[in-house]
């Protein structure tokens, strides 16, 4: 996945994160360079199946920022980081974060309206 830097340039809103209240920095439009440094959502299949016990690559998510809905494999997963950060392909909002360490999984799903998981 990923495009070259020029083709990947686009304007987008602030890319989510854990920003709480307070002042403005981060709330303005930001131009991003798409370095292609992400994988598709299938990269989450292993660790998420450990957490949920089901194959979540068949799950659907809906971004809380822009409302874009789609299958979990459509997310952009940045894994060269202290944890996995899955972003909306439409607006770069953080949909899901997963950190594994010390025998514990921290899963943050605040960026998705829900997670629809087929059970059969």
């Amino acid at each position: 996945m990923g495009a070259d830097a020029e083709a990947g340039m686009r304007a987008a809103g602030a890319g989510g994160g854990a920003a709480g209240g307070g002042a403005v920095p981060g709330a303005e439009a930001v131009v991003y360079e798409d370095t292609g440094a992400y994988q598709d959502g299938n990269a989450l299949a292993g660790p998420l199946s450990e957490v949920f016990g089901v194959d979540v690559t068949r799950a659907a998510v809906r971004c809380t920022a822009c409302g874009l809905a789609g299958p979990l494999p459509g997310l952009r997963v940045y894994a060269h980081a202290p944890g996995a950060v899955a972003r909306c392909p439409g607006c770069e909002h953080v949909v899901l974060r997963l950190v594994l360490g010390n025998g514990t999984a921290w899963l943050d799903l605040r960026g998705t309206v829900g997670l629809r998981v087929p059970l059969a």
Partner: protein
Amino acid sequence: MGIVSPGFHGRRRQGDVKLPPGQYLTDDFPVLSAGPTPRVGQDEWEFVVTTETGERHRWSWREFLALPSETPTVDIHCVTKWSKLGTTWTGVSLDTLLADVETTADYALARSYGGYTTNLPLEDLLDGRAWLAYRFDGEDLHPEHGGPVRLLVPHLYFWKSAKWVHGLDLLTQDEPGFWETAGYHDYGDPWLEQRYQGD
């Protein structure tokens, strides 16, 4: 599992080099990023300190460069286990930037272009221990490494040294940032191996 248990395997520690526990030495400068790279031009960059009363102090790029700079050489330690020794930066000390800021805050939340945040005790930004760095190894700081300006707090794990820094909120109560709300340690002292909550 590999995607969320990153490890950069450089040379193992040399006998005469003292590293924090669990760290490996590397000569590279790995690029870690939780998202796409914000491109912030120097002409549009600004740094904004917002106190607990809402008072704002703002520096444009030109005003920032007019401040006295320092050239610290420091060791840096990433929570993904690589350490890089003797890195040389050019930047402005937070002591300089905060000298005329009146505050009773005990905490700071660094905010970056792109939405990243990280929290620190305010005292960890003072007394010559933190900078806003705009050059690395004699060159302008590349966007991959946080340019045009990143926070540099080398005595804490490197996730505290926010790339693409845009501002600081000074707070009377601690407010966990991006990684601190996802399982990482609130403080992050590499010598105490404070990687995750509970360490």
